[in-house]
């Protein structure tokens, strides 16, 4: 059995059904083994970065098996880097397999050689360069374990072509992992948990501040149960959107620069804040003392290095959110926070921005409200990066569905490949990608992949003819001196849709929105919708 056959056997043993990638000579033995086995479907993306994003979308919906992508050496591997970094910043579990030149040629600067393990060092959870074919089963087993436990993240496996071709002595897939250097703490320390309960007993204005870590540990339902049981309000970060239904009585929106005013107010006025699965990064909390001043900050995270990195805390609690909420739920305590809830409700009523949905253009916030209200409750909404992302965060209604976006890295072009992966992961669910005309053009080559594989992804392009968020920045900070943000030259999307055999609808103003959404969502098919947005529109 060759190394390539073993790699495929390992993927099968891990339950992998789908891989995304782009072949080349250095990964050809692997792709031949994939073909010969016939048990794993492989999707040819149109540029390598999309392979990582598609794998990310896939695993974020599958929630059990890491996303897998496989590309060739050199430029194939370097093109993958942005996708790997994106997954790393959002703690998304990926297995990234790269072909490499022959072992004996490594270091010779030969054709399509790149030191990919070196290049990726600071944004992979771990990486391997295979130098013995007999190590492959152990490496694959470890890679899946590392990617998908503790704080999740991408793991890179660089496999020289001769290692893929070499015959192994035998193949046994290890039943367990034995790594002396990697034993993440998942169960919280009981003494710390008791301290949390003591603080909640004393608290008048407690707040749960939930990040993407809660979703990654499948702890959303437990968080909801805990919040409801004790009547504690919840805000989220961008990556935490969807942790509670956005219309939940106890949910007070996304925090941060681009969040809801009432969510930020809740953070400032709280006296006990439970930060869980969140990094306290600059976009969410622009001054770290906001989250520590005059309050007890409890920081729950599976990654000990996140605790205290950017702020506080008063009570550190290392562990997986799912285990921690189990323990918190087992504790009974008496407290009455109803006055605090009333205060927050009044803030929400008063500070919610009233939408102006008149005029000659589509108003993006109002459109998103209508769209998500018409979507099925378990739909998957994938937001790209730019104004479209911030509008989506502010106005998308997520009930039992998922909200996918790239919060950490903010990688333009994420939504289309990620939506494709999400749809392939669960074809029964409705999947809508929302992007701007800038981000759309970063990934529009994937329309071919969508067509080839008949993936019923629905794509919405907010067309304002600008890199809108940068234009907005230049509007506020550079006195309307616009530099390199003009997107004139955009393709005619109607013709483009026709070229890719995709139904198309263009929406000019709010009067056309309801009919357009109905047509767009009616059938489970791929669809492209273009919304004409005022070029001068800003995110408020």
């Amino acid at each position: 059995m060759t190394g390539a056959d073993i790699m495929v056997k390992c993927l099968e043993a891990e339950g992998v059904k789908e891989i995304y990638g782009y072949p080349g000579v250095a990964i050809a033995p692997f792709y031949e083994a994939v073909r010969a086995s016939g048990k794993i479907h492989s999707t040819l993306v149109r540029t390598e970065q999309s392979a990582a994003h598609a794998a990310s979308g896939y695993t974020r919906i599958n929630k059990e098996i890491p996303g897998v992508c496989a590309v060739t050496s050199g430029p194939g591997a370097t093109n993958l880097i942005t996708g790997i970094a994106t997954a790393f910043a959002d703690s998304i579990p990926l297995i990234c397999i790269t072909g490499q030149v022959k072992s004996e040629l490594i270091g010779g600067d030969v054709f399509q050689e790149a030191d990919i393990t070196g290049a990726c060092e600071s944004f992979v959870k771990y990486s391997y360069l295979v130098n013995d074919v007999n190590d492959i089963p152990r490496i694959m087993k470890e890679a899946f374990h590392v990617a998908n436990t503790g704080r999740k993240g991408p793991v890179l496996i660089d496999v020289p072509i001769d290692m893929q071709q070499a015959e192994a002595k035998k193949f046994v897939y290890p039943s367990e992992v034995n790594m002396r250097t990697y034993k993440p703490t998942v169960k919280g320390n009981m003494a710390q948990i008791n301290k949390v309960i003591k603080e909640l007993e004393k608290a008048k204005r407690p707040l749960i501040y939930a990040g993407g870590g809660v979703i990654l540990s499948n702890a959303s339902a437990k968080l909801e149960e805990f919040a409801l049981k004790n009547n504690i309000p919840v805000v989220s970060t961008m990556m935490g959107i969807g942790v509670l239904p956005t219309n939940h009585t106890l949910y007070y929106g996304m925090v941060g620069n681009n969040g809801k005013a009432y969510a930020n107010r809740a953070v400032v006025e709280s006296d006990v804040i439970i930060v869980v699965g969140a990094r306290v990064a600059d976009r969410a909390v622009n001054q770290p003392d906001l989250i520590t001043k005059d309050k007890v900050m409890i920081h729950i995270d599976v990654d000990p290095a996140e605790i205290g990195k950017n702020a506080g805390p008063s009570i550190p609690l290392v562990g997986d959110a799912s285990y921690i909420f189990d323990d918190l739920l087992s504790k009974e305590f008496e407290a009455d926070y109803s006055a605090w809830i009333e205060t927050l409700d009044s803030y929400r009523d008063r500070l919610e921005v009233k939408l102006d949905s008149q005029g000659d253009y589509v108003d993006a916030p109002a459109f998103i409200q209508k769209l998500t209200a018409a979507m099925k409750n378990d739909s998957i909404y994938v937001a790209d990066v730019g104004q479209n992302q911030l509008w989506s965060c502010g106005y998308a209604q997520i009930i039992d569905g998922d909200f996918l976006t790239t919060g950490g890295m903010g990688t333009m072009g994420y939504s289309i490949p990620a939506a494709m992966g999400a749809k392939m992961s669960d074809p029964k669910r409705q999947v809508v990608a929302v992007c701007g005309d800038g981000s759309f053009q970063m990934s529009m080559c994937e329309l071919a992949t969508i067509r080839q594989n008949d993936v019923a992804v629905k794509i919405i392009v907010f067309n304002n003819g600008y890199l809108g968020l940068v234009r907005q920045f230049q509007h506020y900070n550079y006195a309307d001196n616009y530099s390199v943000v003009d997107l004139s030259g955009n393709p005619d999307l109607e013709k483009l849709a026709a070229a890719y055999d995709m139904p198309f609808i263009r929406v000019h103003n709010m009067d056309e929105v309801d009919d357009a959404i109905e047509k767009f969502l009616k059938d489970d098919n791929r669809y492209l919708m273009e919304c004409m947005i005022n070029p001068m529109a800003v995110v408020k």
Partner: protein
Amino acid sequence: MRRIYSVLVENRSGVLGKVAGLFSRRCYNIDSLAVGETDDPDVSCMTIVSSGDQRTIEQIEKQLNKKLDVIKVKTFEEQSAISRELMLIKVKYNKNTRRDIMENCDIMGANIVDMSKTHMIIQMCDTPERTSIFMKMLTGVSIVEVARTGCLALQKCSEE
């Protein structure tokens, strides 16, 4: 604040780069770094001296612990450690400076380990502080080359 990290790592290729990369990527200082095999050939010990405020010091320890090639991190202040550094200095001498150099070596416990008619190599093994003092004392003579191992340190027996 200076801090010594005694880091046990898997003895594999690329690990030094990963650990050093961690420092450069997060803009942490490395004042000195020394690496060598331990009694177990699969394990190396890195002694890293770094400085920074309390938060940085804690972060360095946490980030080191996060690396999958790191087995164990021990961290201690300079006064809790026995630390040594080996230094070799090649100096140019003449009849006017020769006696002076030899006296300095005597006072500081350094040895002259190689010599020609114009040059000598001085070896000194002492605490990093004393090796630095010794080098300052030689600034009057012409130093040709200096090689230092960087600080090696183990926590004092009484602190275990």
